[in-house]
């Protein structure tokens, strides 16, 4: 094998290329790599934080939900109670009204019956007088026997 000046040329080129790489290749790529590494680290940290935030939010949501359910239950119980009370009152009122109406109607009916009886009595008396007139046309004088007729009317 022949040794010659190619060796020194290669040696010099070697250092020039290495210097060039050190100056223009290595630092930007390393910088990019480091930046990406820190970005990824930040991203992972953010993801962890988001996860814990999510857990907190879920817990809070559950709490709120439970509270809402409790208050709605309370509300419903109150409303039911109130409803039942109103219903009871209404029922009592209705019963009272019905009773009053019934007594009024009964009173009215009694009065009406009384009046009808009176009318009937009058008419029976008239009928009886008319009948008696027919039968006793001549001998019976309505004026004479008025006392008798009134007595009969009272007996009816």
């Amino acid at each position, binding site marked *: 094998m022949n*040794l010659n*000046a190619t060796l*020194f040329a*290669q040696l010099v080129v*070697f250092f020039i290329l*290495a210097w*060039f790489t050190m100056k223009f*290749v290595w630092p*930007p790529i390393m910088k990019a790599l480091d930046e*990406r590494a820190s970005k990824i680290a930040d991203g992972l940290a953010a993801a962890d934080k988001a996860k814990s935030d999510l857990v907190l939010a879920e817990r809070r949501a559950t709490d709120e939900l439970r509270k809402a359910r409790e208050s709605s239950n309370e509300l419903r119980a109150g409303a039911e109670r109130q409803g039942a009370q109103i219903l009871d009152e209404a029922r009592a009122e209705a019963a009272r009204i019905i009773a009053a109406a019934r007594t009024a109607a009964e009173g009215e009916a009694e009065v009406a019956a009384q009046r009808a009886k009176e009318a009937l009595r009058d008419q029976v008396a008239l009928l009886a007088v008319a009948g008696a007139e027919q039968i006793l046309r001549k001998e019976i004088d309505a004026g004479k026997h008025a006392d008798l007729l009134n007595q009969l009317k009272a007996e009816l």
Partner: protein
Amino acid sequence: MATAHAPTASEYIVHHLSFLTNKKQEGLVDWSVFHLDTLFFSIGLGLLAVFVLARLASRATSGVPGRFQAAVEIVIEMVADQAKGIVHSPESRKFVAPLALTVFVWIFLMNAMDLIPVDLLPMLGQAIGINYLRVVPTADLNATLGMSAAVLLLCLYYSVKIKGLGHWMHELFTAPFGNHPVLWPINFAMQMIEFVAKTVSHGMRLFGNMYAGELIFMLIALMGAAWAGTFGSGLLWIGHIIAGTIWAIFHILIITLQAFIFMMLTLVYVGQAHESH
């Protein structure tokens, strides 16, 4: 191949193993000679690598990366991790880690030239009047030893910088066997042997692998070139396809592995320069 008749097997191999030089090499070592093809491809690939990487780096996003950026990031993270594990000085890593990245990418690209069909570029070269062309710079001992010598210089520089010249000199004479006047020359000799062995084996390992790989591609190409219309040569031609496929697939592993090994050893040697005995 420039000759009128078809080249013999040995002519073909010798031709493919000849560099494009500025002048003829005299003897084993001749400092006035340059391998123009090695320089062209290694500098070209090196510039290609660093400019593509720099272009990517200038528009690198810290958001969602594109596929190419992600791929480069994988390589860079791999290199950065290795550098962090081996070189413990953050200050030194500022230069050594990018250097390791350069080494890995550059050597990978130079090795990958082996996967281009062996005759393709040399033949294109001949078409424009270049008679010799070796396209794999890492199959040139000068290139690999040049890089390993650079690593040696780096080791010496960091030895002095980290330990101080006095302490390092002290270490050269007292490690590994101990501080005793009789042991000083032995220690020093051992240290010198260690430096030379490290550097030579560092360069030779890469060179040997790529040279052997290239040579095997040439031998496989010779099988296909034996085609002459006969049954036997037909078998050889099929052998070329099968062996070429297998060797190319295997070579994908080798080129990556060798680039990785060279990078790792660079880091290890620089790391050793930081450690006191």
